């Protein structure tokens, strides 16, 4: 199979996955694309949205469609790291001898939904985030590698912040994309009613195996980013910094800290996935524009003035995309 055929095939597979997801999920096209882009890039997603928008269903459906193992953890203040990672259990064999045996926690899965991650204590959050970064769990002196592919989809409820432990900036940076689940439109709501309150929910067939997913992921990595496109991505990230000469006025006025180099990588990787969705072997300016908000919105910190005036990071990113020149000067 030539690489050109691989591209066609990959695009076809991805379309099939999306079609399977759409059998259960109404709308949320950008959310589905973002989660798929993150999965193909080997990153993790932070989903933000009010309860009841279908975030859990989306992740579960994705697991079904991709033939991936799925687990869900509801984060609560009393959740301990061991509840996530697993623990050493004392077991007694037939001869009466006792020994420790590691009992893996729910993190040993392929698609992990960490529901309301900001409700757990920082200690528990940190345990999960370390596993996300290292892709392994160390208990005692033993390392336990996590299954591959491994992706965490953490959710946050933006309206109930009382009694929560907001993720610190360094932890937020570990999420490749931050996606926002918007409220459905009237037509979508009607469609949701038809699907959920009607007959039995539609069955989702696995259309992509783990091996096939690995192949698609490697193809996404091979998507070409031309020099001038890369320069544009760099300009976009630099424009999020208030002390950069070419930054827009909004950034200079309201931003305390701009995006990290990890944000640039996240944007490039997401753009590569978007290019693959569009059956292209090269990244375009439009791919970067589309990836800018999910990759940068949780990496831009507003200053006091921005917080006080209720400035949205989204509007700042829109301004950055609008004012950053695409072609080199």
């Amino acid at each position, binding site marked *: 199979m030539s*690489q050109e055929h691989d591209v066609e095939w990959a695009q076809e597979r991805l379309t099939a996955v999306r079609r399977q997801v759409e059998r259960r999920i109404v709308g949320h096209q950008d959310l589905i694309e973002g989660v798929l882009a993150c999965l193909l890039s080997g990153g993790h997603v932070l989903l933000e949205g009010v309860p009841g928008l279908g975030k859990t269903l989306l992740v579960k459906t994705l697991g079904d469609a991709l033939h991936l193992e799925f687990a869900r953890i509801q984060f609560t203040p009393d959740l301990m790291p061991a509840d996530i990672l697993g623990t050493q259990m004392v077991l007694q064999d037939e001869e009466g001898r006792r020994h420790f045996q590691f009992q893996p926690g729910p993190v040993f899965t392929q698609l992990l939904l960490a529901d309301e991650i900001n409700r757990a204590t920082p200690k528990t959050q940190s345990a999960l985030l370390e596993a996300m970064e290292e892709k392994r769990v160390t208990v005692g002196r033993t390392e336990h590698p996590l299954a591959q592919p491994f992706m965490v989809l953490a959710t946050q409820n933006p309206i109930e912040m009382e009694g929560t432990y907001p993720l610190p900036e360094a932890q937020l940076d570990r999420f490749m994309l931050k996606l926002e689940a918007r409220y459905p439109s009237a037509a979508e709501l009607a469609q949701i009613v038809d699907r959920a309150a009607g007959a039995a929910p539609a069955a989702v067939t696995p259309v992509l195996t783990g091996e096939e997913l690995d192949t698609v992921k490697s193809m996404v990595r091979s998507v070409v980013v*031309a020099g001038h496109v890369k320069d544009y991505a760099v300009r976009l990230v630099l424009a999020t910094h208030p002390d950069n000469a070419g930054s827009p006025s909004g950034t200079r006025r309201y931003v305390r800290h701009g995006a990290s180099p990890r944000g640039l990588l996240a944007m490039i990787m997401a753009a590569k996935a978007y290019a693959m969705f569009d059956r292209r*072997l*090269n990244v*375009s300016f439009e*791919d970067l524009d589309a990836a800018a908000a999910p990759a940068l919105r949780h990496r831009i910190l507003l200053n006091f003035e921005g917080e006080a005036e209720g400035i949205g990071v989204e509007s700042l990113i829109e301004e950055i995309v609008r004012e950053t020149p695409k072609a*080199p000067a």
Partner: protein
Amino acid sequence: MNGAVPAGRAGDQGAPWPVLRVEKLVGELTRARLLQRVIEHCLVGLLVALVASVVAVLAIRMQWLALPLLPTVVALLGAGLLCAGATAVASRPDSLRVAIDADLALHLKQRLSTTWELLRAGGDAGLVARLAEHAVRARLPARVEHVFPVRYGICARLVPVAAALLLVVSTVDVRRIVESAPPVSDRAVIEEGARLREFARQMAEQAAREALTRSAAAAQSMQRLGARMESGALSRSQSLDRLRQLDSELDAERRAALADGREVQTGPLDVEPVESRPAPGASALRQLLQDLLDGRASSEELTPFTADEQTLAQLGIDPEALKDALDRLDAGDRDAVRRILDDLARSAQSERDAAELRRAQRQLDQARRSLGDTVGDASPSGRAPARAEGAGGEGDGDGEASADGMSPEEGIEGAPLGGPPGGSGSAGEGATERRAEAPRPSDRTASGAAVVRPEGQPGEGRVFVSEARVLPTANPATTDTTAIAARFQPQLEAVLAREDVPPHRKALIRRYFLNLSQGLPPTDARDEDQR
């Protein structure tokens, strides 16, 4: 092409057709972009050259520039186009930049530029071929001219306008239009023009009557200038320039007339003592000589004249020559006397001419003053307009005040500074300068001593600034406390009656506030209470 493809890598002759198609397309796009730039630059260059040509033609037409018209225009246009073309070619577009621009223009999502970048960098041939195929499958343009069309902006729209303007200024005599058109309708200029023209007309009549050739010519010049001023063809500054110029010419004519009459080199007007003042005995001498020729008088009657050398000198007659002529007349030779008589007549006419010209100069002075000339002191005759004011009118003849504000006698008195009146001609510019240095009459005290007026030094004086901070001082109150106390006590009693105050404390409270109202320290009440 800037983006040369390395041999043996992607882009060889044996490359797949999509790669060749991309190569060809980028080459065509680069040429189209270059053509676009050349045309746009040339339009700008042409516009600049046309504007410069218009300016140059105007300058040539107005005779500010002494250059041939057509070659200048051709040279400017050629230089403009050449510079523009050279600039466009020198800034030849980069092929990758062209591909990026084409991507943006055609919404190819960077397919073309990515392929071209890899192709130029000699990337993996297989990947380049696939990228090229993707690019070719996208909407590649069939005609590259549509990708980079020539933009006919504001320059292109202004070029015909500038060309038309150039044509107009090349074919129309702008100078004549400018000079014939009334630039301003300055009422003062028009009125002065009318006055000048009327004066010149009268002067011309006078000159014709008396056969004054120089005055007649001057009258014509004045009449022309007056007519132009009256028609509004001259602005105020132009009128002043012409008036000064004419004044200068008349001054020269007047000097020439005086020189003709006296056969001496005259100095400036200030030291021309007898300019409009014929010698007292000129007419009597002429009459005597004529009577002598006619046989109605004898030589003895001329004795008072021959003895008065000063008068003869004023008349420009050599006493020895007069004696010799009289001797010859006695001997029967009448020619010598006739020559003296002719000389006297010619001298009288020249003096009359000079007087008329002098009168004309005063008229010019008056016109200049009316038009607000501020450089009157610089007039060739050295007459300040303010001094001419003292002339007391035109053509006053003998005894009138001279132009420098002095009486004729004063003028004569001043003459010795330069030399004797009508003398050897040593009175000249030097005399004028010395006179200028002498104190003016108004600069003398009652006793006649000169007042020394040192010249000031223009400049800014020194400024001293000081700032002081003063602490406020206590001031007595301006409100009368008696009136307040009168109101205060009933209010206090009302409050004490209303509030729940222990009876034994009421007196203390009353005293406390009454003390306050009278300006006493409230502690006195407490001390009293304690006591």
